[in-house]
């Protein structure tokens, strides 16, 4: 497969088709419209189903139906639309149905704006909808990684029978980069659990209503055991210039790219900074952070929000290292120069204390 120049939003779509996604249901919202448009054309041409729903709520419930029938299925939206999908995501978690949900984040709360932001971290990693569940969350930081992780998302979804969220932002969605797509997935997993009519066998049902509290509790603990498996097997992160680092920057997605630029700048001034980039936001690479805190005592969290992943970093470090935070919410994209200045100042503070 040749290298092609393609946007993030189109890449989500193309990668999903290559992952064997059979159905896409969605509702227009900026800055992810190109994804739905891509599916309207390409998914249908490849024999799949595209339906433009009447709402985000309807879209996610169409996803539930198609998933229950055994199809690889996806929906996408941006922040306000993802709020509307949370009902269905909770049902997917309760039913234990696989699906891929893409959030191309924008500024908020409310309608906010259409500029890139990372304000939906809590919503994505804490479950988002009602009830006691988790959603695996993948955060690509390049268009190539969008292609690779979209396929991983379908695999995790099917392997653990869970909704999986891919989280990016308006910049990742709109930006074009060279991408080499993986080959079409040939062998899709068999789904014996899918509803397909009882045939000559026993009838089955999928219900999330479990009136007996003890039985509901059993279901909750069953989900927890699954989440423990995911925490054990699926944590992903990248380390950049960490070998000799004395300051660890934690950033994901777009901010991780900006952080890399800033790290190069401060290194030219002799400040040994490095980057730990969580690729999975849940499960969070807490273990890696904890291990690194054995030798590095200064952590800087960098987000396009007012400080959400910050809390996961604080939990992971459990007071073993100092944590400071630089954030630009509301759709403001910080520059590498700006963040380099922040690292530089933090480094100076540290030296003064010494």
């Amino acid at each position, binding site marked *: 497969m040749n290298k092609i120049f393609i946007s993030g939003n189109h890449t989500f779509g193309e990668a999903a088709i290559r992952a064997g996604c059979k159905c896409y249901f969605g509702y227009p919202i900026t800055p992810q419209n190109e994804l739905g448009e891509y599916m309207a054309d390409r998914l249908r041409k490849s024999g799949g189903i595209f339906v433009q729903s009447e709402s985000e709520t309807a879209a996610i419930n169409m996803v539930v139906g*198609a998933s229950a029938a055994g199809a690889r*299925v996806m929906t996408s939206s941006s922040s306000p639309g993802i709020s509307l999908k949370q009902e269905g995501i909770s049902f997917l978690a309760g039913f234990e149905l696989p699906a891929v949900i893409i959030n191309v984040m924008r500024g908020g709360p409310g309608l906010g704006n259409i500029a890139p932001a990372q304000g939906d971290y809590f919503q994505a990693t804490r479950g988002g909808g009602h009830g006691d569940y988790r959603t695996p969350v993948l955060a690509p930081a390049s268009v190539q990684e969008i292609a690779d992780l979209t396929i991983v998302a379908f695999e995790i979804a099917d392997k653990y029978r869970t909704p999986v969220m891919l989280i990016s932002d308006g910049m990742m969605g709109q930006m074009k980069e060279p991408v080499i797509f993986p080959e079409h997935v040939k062998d899709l997993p068999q789904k014996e659990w899918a509803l397909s009519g009882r045939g000559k066998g026993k009838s*089955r049902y999928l219900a999330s209503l479990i009136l007996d509290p003890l039985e509901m509790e059993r279901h909750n603990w069953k989900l927890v055991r699954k989440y423990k498996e995911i925490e054990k097997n699926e944590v992903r992160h990248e380390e950049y210039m960490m070998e000799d680092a004395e300051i660890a920057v934690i950033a994901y997605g777009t901010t991780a790219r900006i952080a890399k630029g800033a790290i190069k700048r401060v290194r030219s001034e002799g400040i040994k900074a490095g980057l730990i980039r969580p690729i999975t936001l849940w499960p969070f690479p807490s273990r890696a952070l904890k291990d690194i805190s054995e030798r590095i005592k200064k952590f800087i969290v960098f987000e396009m929000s007012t400080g959400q992943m910050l809390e996961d970093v604080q939990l992971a470090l459990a007071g073993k290292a100092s944590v400071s935070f630089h954030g630009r919410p509301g759709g403001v994209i910080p520059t590498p120069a700006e963040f380099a200045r922040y690292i530089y100042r933090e480094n100076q503070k540290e030296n003064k204390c010494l």
Partner: protein
Amino acid sequence: MNLKNKWPKYYKKDVVTHYCPGCGHGIAHRIVAEVLEELDVGDRAICVNPAGCAVLAYRYFDIDMLESAHGRGTAMATGIKRARPDLFVFSYQGDGDLSAIGTAETIHSANRGEHISVIFINNAVYGMTGGQMAPTTLVGQKTTTSPSGRNPDYEGYPLHITDVVASFPGVVYAERVAVDTPAGIRKTKKAVTNAFRCQIDGIGYSIVEILSPCPTNWKMNTIESYKWVTEEMTKEFPLGVLTDKREKKK
């Protein structure tokens, strides 16, 4: 006359009903189960059941079932049918589910002409939550949230959603029936048969609205409640075929 009791193939045996005495759901369930068998589609059928009294319908129907979030039945049915057009997909929904919280899903699935069938139980109240006012509650009808009777100036008028969707080109068959009398029950079975056939023939969306008694929440005895369907509900919701475009579509 052959009165031999024949148990429908797709209705589970030896289950105790959770429906109240006199409730119309049991009759509607049995009709659906009989039609699934007569049209020979039960083996490939998936029923999407609602949030509401029929949330436990999987206890009775011996076919594959998917519970829906409140009001989202026809969106879920859309997902199933689009992913697996070979399956026979129908939703079974109450009036709160279908014509209040699920209005958008109902209207747009109908307007897309999804190849699904909808069984719509209209009992003019929210049953499972204890008898609150529904969009279908009659003018003057007392409920727990319209304690002095539904006042159109304050609560608006009963919503005729089946009439709304019947006007859509994609809706091939829509009929309103009632399970208030033996004749009504026979008509209901015929309506369900016509509706299900539309899907088997692949000609589009069909809906059957079934007026059904809820003696518990209407605070009536069974006989009064069946009379109330006949005498009061049918005045607001006249019975009959609301649209039949089967010939045009074939």
